[in-house]
C-alpha cells in the first residue's frame, strides 16, 4: 500500500489513491447511520464501515440530554444520550467497524468515498453500497433577514445546546429566543435550569411549530412568555448584543409600526428549523427534492444514483428519532441486498450509469420548478417500472417518492402544509383505493404515515395519489 502517497495528498480535489474496498460504507454515525449499520450486519453483510466526523458516535442525540426519545422503539422514555447508547452498544457488541474523527469530503456516483482523518490523512474507499446518513444543519441567521449590526451573542439554538450540554459553557444570562420549534423550546428550559433568565420566545407565525407538550413543560412550567405573531426587528449593541427590538406582525408577517418593544438581553438564540445536509449527495449527483431538501428515493431508500441510499434527517427532517431508526434499518436491509445481488461488486468505472450523470445535471438546479419535472423524469428512468407516489392538496410531500416492488407492505411517510381535523388519508391508484385511514388531526409539525399492504399494492395501476379529505362542515 502506498501510504506515502496518501499522506502527501492534502487539500487538493484530486481523489486519493483507492486503498480499500468495503461492502457498505455509511456516512454519519448518528441514529440513522448506526441503525443502518446494525441492520446491514444482521442482513448478512458484515464488511461495513461507519465514518463519523465527530469524536464519538451518536450524532445530534449527544447534545439532546432531555427526555422524549424511544417511546415507540423501546416503549420507554429515554434521554438522547441513552437512546444513542443503546445503538452504540449494539455496534460495539457486533464488532461493526467505525471510524470517528473521519470527515467525508467526497462521494462519487461510482461509489468512491473519500475521507480525511488526523491519523490516516486522506483515504479513498470503493464501496459496494453507500448509505448517506449525514443528518441536518440549522438554518442560520443569514436566512432570517434580521437587519442591524452583527454583534456577538447571536447563536443558533442547536449551537448553544452543544455549548451548554457538551462543553458546559453558558452563552449568556439574559436570553431572547426567536422561533418556537422544539429546539428553541427545549433550550428555553435548559437555559433557565442553568440559572439564566429567558425573557421571551418570539414566534413569527400565529402558532408554535413545537410540540404542545414542550410548550407546557419548557415554557409554562417556568412562566416564560411565548409571543406569537412577533419577530425580532432590530438587534442592538456594538461588540456584544445589548438588546433586541421585537414587533408584532400582521397577517402577512410584516411588522406592525408602533408595536415595537425593547428587550434588554445579552444573547439571542435563533431556532428556525433544520435543513438536510446534502453537500456530499450533490457531489455524487444524487437528485434532490426541492420540497424536502433531501434525496428523491424509492421504497428501498435508494437515491437516483444506483447503490447510494439515504436515511434520517439527511433524507427529510424527522421529529421522532424512532422513525429515523426505522428508516436506517430499511436502508441497511436494502443496501445489503444491493451488495448481495452482486450489483455492488461492479468495478467502479462500470458502475457509472448514464442515469446518474443525468441526475447530476438535474440536481444542480434543483430550485426551479422545471428542475422538479426533469428530476422526476430522470428518476423514473433510473428505476424503470417504478410506481410514482404523487402527493396532492395539503399533502406536501411523501417519502418514498416511488415504489419498486409489490411483494412487501410499504409505509409511506408524509407531511401536510396546514393543520386539519377529522381527516381521512387515502392512497389511491386510478379508481382503486389502496388504503384509507382516519386521523383525528394532522399538522405541519408532525410527520404522519400510512401503510399500503402488499396485496393492495399489487392492484395499483400506475401512479399512486396520496390525498386528504376533510370532514364536511355541515
Amino acid at each position, binding site marked *: 500500500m502506498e501510504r506515502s502517497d496518501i499522506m502527501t495528498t492534502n487539500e487538493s480535489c484530486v481523489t486519493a489513491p483507492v486503498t480499500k474496498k468495503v461492502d457498505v460504507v455509511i456516512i454519519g454515525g448518528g441514529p440513522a447511520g448506526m441503525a443502518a449499520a446494525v441492520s446491514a450486519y444482521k442482513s448478512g453483510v458484515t464488511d461495513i464501515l461507519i465514518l463519523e466526523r465527530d469524536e464519538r458516535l451518536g450524532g445530534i442525540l*449527544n447534545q439532546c*440530554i*432531555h*427526555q*422524549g426519545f424511544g*417511546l415507540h422503539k423501546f416503549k420507554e422514555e429515554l*434521554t*438522547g*444520550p*441513552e437512546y*444513542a*447508547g443503546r445503538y*452504540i452498544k449494539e455496534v460495539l457488541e457486533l464488532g461493526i467497524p467505525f471510524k470517528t474523527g473521519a470527515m467525508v469530503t467526497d462521494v462519487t456516483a461510482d461509489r468512491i468515498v473519500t475521507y480525511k482523518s488526523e491519523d490516516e490523512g486522506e483515504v479513498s474507499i470503493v464501496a459496494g453500497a453507500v448509505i448517506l446518513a449525514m443528518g441536518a444543519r440549522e438554518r442560520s441567521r443569514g436566512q432570517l433577514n434580521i437587519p442591524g449590526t452583527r454583534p456577538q451573542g447571536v447563536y443558533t439554538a442547536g449551537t448553544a445546546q452543544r455549548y*451548554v*450540554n*457538551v*462543553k*458546559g459553557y453558558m452563552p449568556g444570562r439574559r436570553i431572547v429566543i426567536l422561533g418556537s420549534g422544539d429546539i428553541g423550546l427545549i433550550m428555553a428550559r435548559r437555559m*433557565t*435550569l*442553568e*440559572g439564566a433568565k429567558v425573557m421571551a420566545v418570539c414566534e413569527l407565525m400565529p402558532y408554535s411549530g413545537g*410540540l*404542545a*407538550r414542550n*410548550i*407546557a*413543560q419548557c415554557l409554562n*412550567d417556568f412562566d416564560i412568555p411565548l409571543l406569537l405573531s412577533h419577530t425580532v426587528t432590530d438587534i442592538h449593541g456594538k461588540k456584544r448584543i445589548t438588546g433586541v427590538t421585537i414587533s408584532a406582525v400582521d397577517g402577512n408577517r410584516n411588522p406592525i409600526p408602533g408595536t415595537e418593544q425593547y428587550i434588554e438581553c445579552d444573547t439571542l438564540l435563533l431556532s428556525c428549523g433544520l435543513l438536510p445536509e446534502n453537500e456530499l449527495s450533490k457531489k455524487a449527483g444524487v437528485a434532490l427534492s426541492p420540497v424536502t431538501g433531501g434525496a428523491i428515493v424509492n421504497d428501498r431508500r435508494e437515491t437516483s444514483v444506483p447503490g447510494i441510499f439515504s436515511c434520517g434527517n439527511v433524507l427529510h427532517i424527522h*421529529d*421522532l428519532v424512532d422513525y429515523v431508526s426505522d428508516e436506517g434499518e430499511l436502508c441497511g436491509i436494502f443496501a445489503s441486498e444491493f451488495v448481495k445481488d452482486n450489483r455492488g461488486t461492479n468495478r467502479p468505472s462500470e458502475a457509472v450509469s448514464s442515469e446518474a450523470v443525468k441526475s447530476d445535471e438535474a440536481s444542480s438546479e434543483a430550485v426551479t420548478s422545471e428542475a422538479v419535472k426533469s428530476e422526476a423524469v430522470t428518476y423514473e428512468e433510473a428505476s424503470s417500472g417504478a410506481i410514482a407516489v404523487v402527493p396532492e392538496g395539503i399533502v406536501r410531500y411523501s417519502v418514498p417518492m416511488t415504489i419498486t416492488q409489490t411483494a412487501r407492505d410499504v409505509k409511506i411517510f408524509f407531511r401536510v402544509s396546514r393543520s386539519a381535523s377529522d381527516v381521512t388519508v387515502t392512497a389511491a391508484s386510478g379508481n382503486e383505493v389502496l388504503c384509507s385511514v382516519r386521523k383525528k388531526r394532522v399538522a405541519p409539525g*408532525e410527520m404522519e404515515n400510512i401503510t399500503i399492504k402488499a396485496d393492495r399494492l399489487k392492484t395499483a395501476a400506475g401512479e399512486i395519489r396520496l390525498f386528504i379529505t376533510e370532514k364536511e362542515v355541515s
Partner: protein
Amino acid sequence: MADMTCIICPVGCSLTALKDENGVIKVTGNACPRGAKYAEAELTNPVRTLTDIVKLTNRDVMLSVKSNAPIPKSLLLEAAAILSTVNAAAPVKTGDVIVKDILGTGADIVATKDVD
C-alpha cells in the same frame, strides 16, 4: 376546573380536570389512561423528571444526568442549582448514581451516558 396539556407522550392531548363536590377528580380529553393519571397528579402534586449535566473533573465533556424518578416540579430549579456545583469523574456508566436522594425526594441523579 383546570385545563392543561398532557406531557406524557408527544400526542399532547388537551385535558380538562374537574373536581366534583366529593373531591373526586374527573378528567376528560385524554386519549389514554396515562393522561388521567397525569392530570390528577398536576392537581395534587405535579412532578417532572429533571435532565441536566454535571462537570467531569478529568474530561473536557460534560456528563449528562437525569433524576431516576420524577421530582416535585417546585424543586426543579433548586435541584439544578445543586447539580451545577457537583463534580463527577470518568469512567462513568449509564445508570451510575451521581447524587443520592436529591433534596430528600427519594430520587437519585444518575448518569445517562457512558464516558470511558
